[in-house]
């Protein structure tokens, strides 16, 4: 049932460029899609482990810069005559490196904060994002600082027998973003339904008990941070190759806030939550812009958020699911309890 709904949604999203030809709207959908990927990755931490990453945009921005620099190349003086020179690689290599390096940053931040715990993760992530932003702003030889990295090439994919396809148009990029979003959704879904995901949920609900049944806090949370950061890095890479120009503003705190809003309004801890919240708050500004002045746009934005959270405190998806009786304790589980017919005596 749930899978059918997911597939129908995917089919719907896939059909959009067929009937929606307005480039302005398509552009809004692409950037929204990229931010939805970021929000999904944030949800893995916030919704499934309870850890708030208020510097989440750092992983996104690192992905954007890594991917851009990998495909642009650079020549950076380190000390005296010693330079690090990198010749441009294909953008797809940048995309993969973005995932790896962002994931590694997630590992470092996780290691640093999860062994100490508490509000530490929030603080470490915020500080991390600020440090990375300052590096991007000031290491001009590498990043061009405020002058921005420009002319970032579009992603090129090799199709067997058909040569190369440069994903330059909005049409192409829409499908690229949709594909990455679908893969991320699938990966996160598999993860949270595995025993790793159950360990995360256990830690979020009752850490003392989780630890007492053998769940390793640091390992479990760090794993979530790595995967979350890696996916955010992938989103950042897509952003860089689509917009084709990035400057240190990609690290703006407001972007993290946007992702948090997407997750919380849609429903944290729900796989579809960030998608629903993302579509609403990604597209809302697009529809408000032509009809009201900027101040009124922000107020409306805030009012919509407050109304959603007032009516559906747990977020749109969980609240609707509860209303429709699709709560977590669904019919599929009942069946699985009945699988074993053997007497309990044998197995205790």
């Amino acid at each position, binding site marked *: 049932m749930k899978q059918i709904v997911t597939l129908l949604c995917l089919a719907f999203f896939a059909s959009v460029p067929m009937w929606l030809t307005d480039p302005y709207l398509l552009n809004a959908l692409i950037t929204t899609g990229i931010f939805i990927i970021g929000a999904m990755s944030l949800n893995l931490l916030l919704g499934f482990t309870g850890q708030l990453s208020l510097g989440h945009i750092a992983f996104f921005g690192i992905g954007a810069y890594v991917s851009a620099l990998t495909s642009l190349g650079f020549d950076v003086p380190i000390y005296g005559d010693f330079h690090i020179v990198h010749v441009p690689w294909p953008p797809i290599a940048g995309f993969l490196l973005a995932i790896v390096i962002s994931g590694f940053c997630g590992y470092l931040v996780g290691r640093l904060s999860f062994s100490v715990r508490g509000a530490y993760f929030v603080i470490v992530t915020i500080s991390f994002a600020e440090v990375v932003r300052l590096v991007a702003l000031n290491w001009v030889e590498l990043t061009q600082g405020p002058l921005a990295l420009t002319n970032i090439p579009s992603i090129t994919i090799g199709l067997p027998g058909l040569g190369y396809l440069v994903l330059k148009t909005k049409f192409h990029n829409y499908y690229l973003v949709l594909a990455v979003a679908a893969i991320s959704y699938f990966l996160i879904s598999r993860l949270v339904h595995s025993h790793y995901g*159950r360990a995360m949920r256990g830690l979020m609900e009752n850490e003392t008990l*989780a630890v007492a*049944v*053998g769940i390793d806090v640091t390992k479990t949370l760090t794993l979530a941070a790595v995967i979350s950061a890696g996916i955010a890095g992938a989103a950042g890479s897509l952003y860089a190759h689509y917009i084709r120009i990035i400057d240190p503003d990609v690290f703006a705190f407001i972007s993290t806030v946007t992702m948090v809003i997407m997750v919380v309004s849609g429903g944290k801890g729900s796989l579809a939550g960030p998608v629903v919240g993302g579509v609403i708050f990604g597209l809302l500004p697009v529809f408000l812009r032509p009809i009201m002045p900027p101040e009124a746009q922000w107020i409306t934005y805030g009012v919509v958020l407050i109304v959603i959270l007032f009516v559906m405190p747990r977020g749109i998806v969980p609240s609707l699911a509860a209303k429709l009786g699709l709560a*977590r*304790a669904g019919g599929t589980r009942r069946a699985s*309890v009945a*699988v074993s017919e053997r007497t309990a005596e044998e197995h205790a």
Partner: protein
Amino acid sequence: MAETVLSIEHVAVHFGGLVAISDMNFHVNKGEIVSLIGPNGAGKTTAFNVMTGFLTPAKGAVNYCGADLKGKKPHEIADLGLIRTFQRTSVFPNDTVYDNVLIGLHRQGELKGKLGLAEAILGLPRARASEKAQRARAAELVRWIGLEARANDLAGSLSYGEQRLVGVALALAAQPKMLLLDEPVSGMNASETHTFVQLIRNIRDRGVTILLVEHDMPMVMSVSDRIVVLNYGRIIAEGPPDEIRKNPAVIEAYLGQGAKDVVKEVAVHA
């Protein structure tokens, strides 16, 4: 000679000026049911916290299956098969009973080798088989503990007594070699307690050593092979139920609390 599973050697715990445990020494043999009893505040839960790595003792050592547990984290100790339950009801309240047990099966879910994560995410055969085995095992445990009818209810919505059972099922899911139970029957009525005693015996008969903290004296007397009595952080008596029942120091300790009834009750049930 019986094989020692757990031994507590010269353990002391201080909270600021308060001496919660002073120089505690005792051991539990393989396959035994040992009870640790004592008036409120005697230090029983504190002793459990030391054994399971939640507290570091000021002095002394805990040995489990020949290994010193010093410096080990709680999850590492659980990994060795020393599993505890908690005095305050302890479940994952927003998960179903069935999912609670599944979370408890975490140790069973770990696949050997470095690629476990990739296998789980990609749904490769080994991970799928393991997932299936966990689900079957969870269903068995839920049934065995007698909560089949509540399997799909949120654990937080269960009665207090039922939640205690979920706590035990969770602990069993973690594959204990030794189980530490902290007041498991508090909040249960007489018939629930009776069933629970059968359950404990059953668990022991399957080779799990048990250390029990409990205030329900009739239950303690009937189920224990040996009893260790704690008062003000000190062991004041140790021996089989019959000896403990008659031990003047024990009666004194409980009388001091105005617990004459307990002693009487014990005599009645003898």
